[in-house]
């Protein structure tokens, strides 16, 4: 028996088509970094070393209105002597198009392992700071940031 497509069937098919269309749109968008991509970026910078939470401090506001300029400061407690100093502090994000943000490199001459800058955040996400000490250990800190107006990725 042939019958016309029912309203329910039509809606189901249309919905599926719309869903498929949306999925394909998302697929062609520039790839956003994911927590996995961030993990990969971290591994690229620090190798296979073990990272322990603590010793490094990441200062970033918990709620930002404009993701285009977010003040960010990192610091680590260290005597900063030739024998015991912080070699570098790296910053990564989870959902920016690229997980790397900045790498600050210090030495005993820096006097203090502290640096600040302004970053872009493309979305509400977790920011991670990893400190590299002269004894070869790695320490991390993370902060969750809610972004009201994300840094523009598309359009001018």
């Amino acid at each position: 028996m042939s019958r016309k497509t029912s309203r329910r069937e039509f809606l189901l098919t249309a919905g599926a088509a719309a869903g498929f269309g949306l999925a394909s749109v998302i697929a062609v968008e520039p790839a956003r970094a994911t927590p996995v991509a961030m993990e990969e970026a971290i591994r690229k910078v620090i190798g296979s070393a073990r990272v322990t939470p603590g010793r490094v401090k990441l200062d970033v506001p918990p709620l930002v209105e404009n993701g285009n300029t977010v003040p960010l400061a990192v610091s680590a407690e260290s005597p900063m002597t030739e024998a015991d100093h912080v070699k570098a502090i790296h910053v990564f994000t989870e959902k920016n198009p690229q997980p790397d943000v900045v790498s600050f490199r210090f030495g005993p001459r820096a006097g203090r392992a502290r640096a600040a800058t302004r970053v872009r955040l493309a979305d509400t996400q977790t920011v991670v700071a990893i400190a590299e000490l002269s004894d070869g250990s790695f320490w991390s800190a993370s902060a969750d940031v809610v972004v009201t107006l994300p840094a523009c990725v598309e359009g001018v």
Partner: protein
Amino acid sequence: MASALINVPARARRGEVIEIKTLISHAMETGYRRSQLGARIPRDIIRLFVCTYNGTEVFRAELHPAIAANPFIVFSTVATESGTLAFHWTGDNGFSVTESARITVE
């Protein structure tokens, strides 16, 4: 020519940790944005900032597109001797700017 602003204390005591603030005008085009015609705007960012104190490197920052336009960098160094602090920014499309500041250590 890009203009840079640098804030270094003019005089400091020997061994004191001084804070240095730098700001440089640069669009830091991420390379992820598209124009209204859909063409991707090529990346144009500052990749590296280096500070040397009388020729010795004291601080370095590797920048990525996630740094906001007009990079502002704050860091510190130990005032060891009177002399010159040189600041060097390098980036895409041959961007290169050098600035310097005098410091008197007593």
